[in-house]
């Protein structure tokens, strides 16, 4: 007990008042500090796990030049503010906030710490010291949709959504359009569970979709629980955010992997070099931010070929799943033949394409 009284008292209380001063004089020798706040636990094997993997890759790439700190399970409410403030006060000079719901909180804390840089994932508000970054996940959804269209025997596929936000709407639309491109009769059943990470709720919703006749189910939530259910039921699914094949070796057809490492490495390097600027990133398959995992060995060759064609198309810039004609649920023409939806329209999309039924 005597051990901690002295040393840690200095650390805890002294740090509060003296850290800005200490930091300034000792900075040259100390590693550059980078903070992260995560929505889920790093062990979710999905969204947060992928961000944490990116953090570890960045740390490995930059070696001793950088020191990272993360906080997991940060709620998207006012309690994110003190956590962001803490990270800034503890000397982190670049802070990544990895969920949409931190947007206003990041901007508020960024105002208090003009010399600290922030990067907010999936948001749309920027400031001089706040960047935004995102991935074109819908490109991966176009690949999994293509596979689902090929694999489904019933012609009914499922989509387990979280919230009705543009990213999810974009995802289910891309999934459905790609599936319809290989099988025009495809119908997609959609369930929203109002949560990103809730294995019990995710399983229950997957069961609902299976009961509605879906034999391939994609998830837009973060845990492997839906896949485990698919495996038990003998139907198919996809990993979300990371390769989840070890949780359901039979059901796991492939996965959309979020690759954040290169972005984190590049941005931390820029911050260290002093070339960091407030920007907006939206990378996809071409840039390597979205990756499709190895296919399940049981997946038929023609399905693999069709999926590869979509991937190659995105890499070459010759394919876009959001190419007209696209109709909405009511049958109204939203995108004319030959036209493409711009990223600006996609970023605010709130309508579903024809063939999607909200269950």
């Amino acid at each position, binding site marked *: 007990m005597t051990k901690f009284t002295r040393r*840690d008292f200095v650390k*805890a209380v002294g740090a509060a008042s003296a850290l800005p001063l200490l930091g300034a004089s000792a900075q040259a020798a100390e590693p550059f500090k980078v903070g992260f706040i995560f929505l889920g636990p790093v062990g979710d094997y999905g969204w947060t796990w992928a961000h944490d993997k990116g953090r570890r890759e960045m740390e490995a790439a930059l070696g001793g030049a950088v020191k990272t700190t993360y*906080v997991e399970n940060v*709620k998207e*409410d*006012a309690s994110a503010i*003190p956590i962001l403030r*803490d990270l800034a006060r503890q000397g982190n000079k670049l802070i990544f906030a990895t969920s949409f719901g931190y947007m*206003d909180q990041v901007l508020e804390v960024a105002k208090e710490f003009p010399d600290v840089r922030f990067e907010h994932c999936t948001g749309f508000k920027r400031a001089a010291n706040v960047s935004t970054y995102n991935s074109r996940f819908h490109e991966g959804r176009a690949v999994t949709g293509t596979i689902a269209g090929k694999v489904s025997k019933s012609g009914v596929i499922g989509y387990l959504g979280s919230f*009705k936000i543009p990213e999810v709407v974009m995802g289910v639309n891309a999934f459905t359009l790609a599936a319809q491109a290989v099988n025009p009769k495809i119908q997609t059943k959609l369930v929203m569970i109002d949560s990103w990470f809730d294995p019990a709720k995710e399983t229950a919703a997957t069961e609902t979709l299976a009961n509605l006749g879906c034999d391939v189910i994609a998830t837009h939530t973060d845990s492997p629980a839906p896949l485990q259910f698919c495996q038990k039921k003998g139907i198919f699914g996809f990993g979300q955010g990371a390769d989840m094949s070890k949780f359901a070796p039979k059901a796991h057809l492939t996965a959309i992997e979020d690759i954040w490492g290169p972005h984190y490495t590049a941005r931390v390097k820029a911050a260290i070099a002093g070339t960091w600027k407030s920007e907006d990133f939206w990378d996809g398959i071409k840039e390597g931010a979205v990756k499709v995992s190895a296919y399940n060995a049981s997946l038929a060759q023609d399905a693999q070929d069709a999926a590869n064609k979509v991937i190659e198309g995105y890499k070459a810039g010759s394919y876009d799943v959001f190419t007209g004609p696209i109709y909405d649920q009511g049958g109204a023409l939203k995108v004319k033949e030959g036209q493409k939806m711009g990223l600006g329209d996609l970023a605010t999309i709130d309508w579903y394409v024809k063939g999607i039924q909200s269950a």
Partner: protein
Amino acid sequence: MRLRLEKRLEPSRTMLVMTPVLSVIAIMILGVIIFDGLGYDGPQAVWELFFTPVLDVYKWRDVASKAAPLIIIALGLSLGNQAKIWNIGAEGQYILGAIGAAGVAFVTQSMTGFWIIPLMILVGMTCGAFYAAIPAVLRTRYGVSEVLSSLMFVYVSLQLLSYLITGPWKDPDGHNFPQTAQLTDAQVLPHEVWNSGILPGLLIALIVAIIFYIIVSRTVFGFSVRAIGEAPHAARYGGFSSNGIVWATLMISGAMAGLAGVLELMQLTRLNLGFPSGYGFTAIIVSLLGRSHPIGVFIAGIVLAITYVGGQVAQTVVHVPNATAGLFQALLLFAILASDLLVRYRVRINVSSPPKEGQRS
């Protein structure tokens, strides 16, 4: 041979006050052992969890902002607890309070004036109170247990929230994300009261605690609440209306939860799907830990807030997992409830005589 619990005639007053304190100390020692066993720096983890939030002036504000809603809701609940009327749905009333205030904000978006904030608070409290009145109707007219109905209305309130922010109240500049427009400067309380560094929420919590103290200890209403709880039949002979108490305690606790919702909305500055974060449920623990006494509730709210804030500090400094804060809250609750039992009952080893009437086994 069996163990049985025998009620003590007069639980020791000293022990009733001392057990929560002793529990906290016991948990700290246990924490050092657990963390060391897991390979972390045990003493430092416990230090960060329990002392940094108290000693670091900069963290007081975080503790206060976490404690204020817990205390306000728990004070409301404590009144019902004394009458043995259990409002489990404070989370729903908290959400309704925020919805009411957000409704005022929606209408007054382009207006300014000192009256907007009081109106938001008033409407929020009214919404919370009326939302809690639904379980009161069900209980007094149809005999439905308020434990079940109040809990179920939490889920209804979540649906209502979801409908409003994805539909009619959706922020037109929000890129179709489900959230309301940001509150204007005329719609939020200042960050601190008269530049004193005191959070308005905590000041309000303190005032509410004093008011509740006066109500409970100095008014006939406070007496009737306790009477109904401790001896319902006697209270009825005494002329107190048990239905009236059901209505009053539920609506008061609803109004308090609504007030907390309004204050939290002003901190977050908009309603979104992340808004309901469980204060209404945690406040139930706070009211029980505080033994449903206004001073106890105030202290319990601060202690629980400290474990939250300390959990975050420990995560960033010692890198212990986030689940630790929850672990400590659970251990604390367990220790207090267990010692409570031992203060009120004594353990007797009984050789082969059947349990007698009125005894727990």
